[in-house]
């Protein structure tokens, strides 16, 4: 950082004003106003909103980071503006600028303050990622943080190019509709049947990669009822862009009614589904592999199907 130029000598002119104090007096109210505007005016409207605990957590984290970053940005801008106005070259002034050899006090202060800011944000970020809501991100099959009580388990099954959902606590029925109760902890078990997808429930601030044969767990609790935009957030082929839908957060009573009705409606197809599991191995349909083996068939599904998976073949 450039230090304020020093007077050339006792006869050089009037004493230099206290530039540091001036800059401070300009910067301080600007930073204060900016932080108040960010926190109270802009903050409540920052994405992804506060529809769920994880969304509110993300919004809070963004507000904190913005409030900490704004004074730094404003200081750089204030100093730059002040320098351009105060230390600019005047008409007729062809003298070289004073040699600048650094200012240890300013440099140490700058490094120390920014280091404290960045490191404190680092710790803050780590805490926000793990607790209290797991940030809504996929945390793998064994998340460090788990909500108390018994969450509602919703399995998200991705396939080119559709998400389906299984509700193991309601008989394991599967449906294309995502319906969630408000105020209850939700455990999303996210997996894929083919390529890598990513389940993104925008308003809930839940985003978890859907990998084949991996169970990626994400938690959230919806705080408000309403519509949720669902998208695939991982380029997954021709119709990736069309892989979106809408889910719904409803009252607990409405959810119970929907779950019971859907369970009954889907009973026939549920009987043909594999037993609920956190991941599915399509090539382990033993009866099918036997059929393939005995028929001598190759199977169009490439490595997924075929006689090589028939365990009893000689």
């Amino acid at each position, binding site marked *: 950082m450039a230090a304020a130029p020093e007077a050339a000598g006792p006869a050089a002119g009037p004493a230099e004003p206290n530039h540091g104090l001036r800059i401070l007096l300009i910067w301080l109210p600007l930073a204060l106003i900016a932080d108040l505007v960010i926190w109270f005016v802009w903050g409540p409207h920052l994405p992804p909103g506060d529809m769920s605990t994880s969304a509110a957590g993300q919004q809070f984290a963004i507000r904190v980071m913005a409030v900490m970053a704004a004074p730094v940005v404003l200081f750089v801008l204030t100093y730059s503006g002040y320098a351009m106005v105060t230390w600019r070259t005047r008409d007729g002034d062809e003298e070289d600028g004073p040699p600048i050899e650094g200012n240890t006090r300013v440099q140490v202060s700058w490094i120390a303050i920014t280091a404290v800011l960045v490191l404190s944000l680092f710790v803050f970020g780590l805490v926000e990622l793990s607790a209290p809501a797991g940030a809504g991100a996929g945390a793998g099959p064994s998340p460090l943080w788990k909500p108390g009580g018994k969450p509602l388990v919703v399995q998200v*099954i991705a*396939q*080119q*190019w*559709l998400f*389906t959902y299984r509700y193991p606590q309601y008989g394991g029925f*599967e449906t*294309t509709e995502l319906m969630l109760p408000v105020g209850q902890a939700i455990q999303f078990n996210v997996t894929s*049947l*083919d*390529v890598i997808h990513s389940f993104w429930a925008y308003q809930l601030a839940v985003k978890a990669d859907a990998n084949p044969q991996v169970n990626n767990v994400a938690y959230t609790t919806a705080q408000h009822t309403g519509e949720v935009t669902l998208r695939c957030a991982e380029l997954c*082929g*021709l*119709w990736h862009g*069309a892989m979106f*839908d809408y889910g719904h957060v409803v009252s607990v009573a409405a959810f119970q009614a929907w779950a019971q009705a859907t369970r009954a409606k*889907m009973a*026939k*197809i549920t009987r*043909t*589904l*594999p037993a609920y599991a956190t991941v599915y191995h*399509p090539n382990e*349909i033993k*009866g*099918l592999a036997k*059929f393939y083996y005995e*028929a001598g*068939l190759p*199977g*169009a*599904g*490439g*490595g*997924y*199907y075929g006689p090589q998976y028939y365990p009893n073949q000689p």
Partner: protein
Amino acid sequence: MSVGARAATLLVAFIAVAGGVVFVVIHILLAEPATVNFTAGHATGRPVNMTIMTDPVNDVSNHPDWVSYFVKSPRTGKWIHSTIWQLPADTRINVTAYEFDSCDPLRNQFNGLVRGTVGGVMSVSGEADGANGNGISVVNSDTTCGVAHTFSVPELGLSVPFEGVLYTAKNQCTQGPCVMSDTHTLTRFSFITPGPGDYRWQCFIPCGLASVDGNGHAMSTIGFMTGYLDVA
């Protein structure tokens, strides 16, 4: 070489390169099968009859071993190799689907559920029409060689599994479009088109033979096992 000759050479080279770029853009990047129009002459309120077939091979593309759909032209009655179908909005579409391909298991048995059709059912020629005679609503592709392909329009909640031809069957189709003397299954169902818009449809069987896990090739190429309904 004279200046004129050099200028002419440059001009020819420029035209050749520009022509190559235009050819690639038009014939490869923007290439799309013809739209088969079911709206011409359609009287509002009247149903539309659409006949389609799924063939294991075709003789009309650069990929003869890719499975693909054909649709019968409502104007000429000829089979057209296209998966872009223009349909009238808010209209009942009666679909007759011939399936000439053999079976593969569904990667997700949930897609064995008939959904989004009128009555939530389909009928399959030669089979009992469900337990109560109202139609078939579920096909289990794991128990036998049950399903060859699906016709699914996710945005409409429409999905119909087509039962496949047994591998051991005689007279299998070897030339597309297949002919009715080839072994096939016949499925019928109806659905109601929504308001105007483009609605993609696809097959949920991993039927891209020779691609990784069956996900590519025919399954991911418009004109073969996916396309869109151009509802007007």
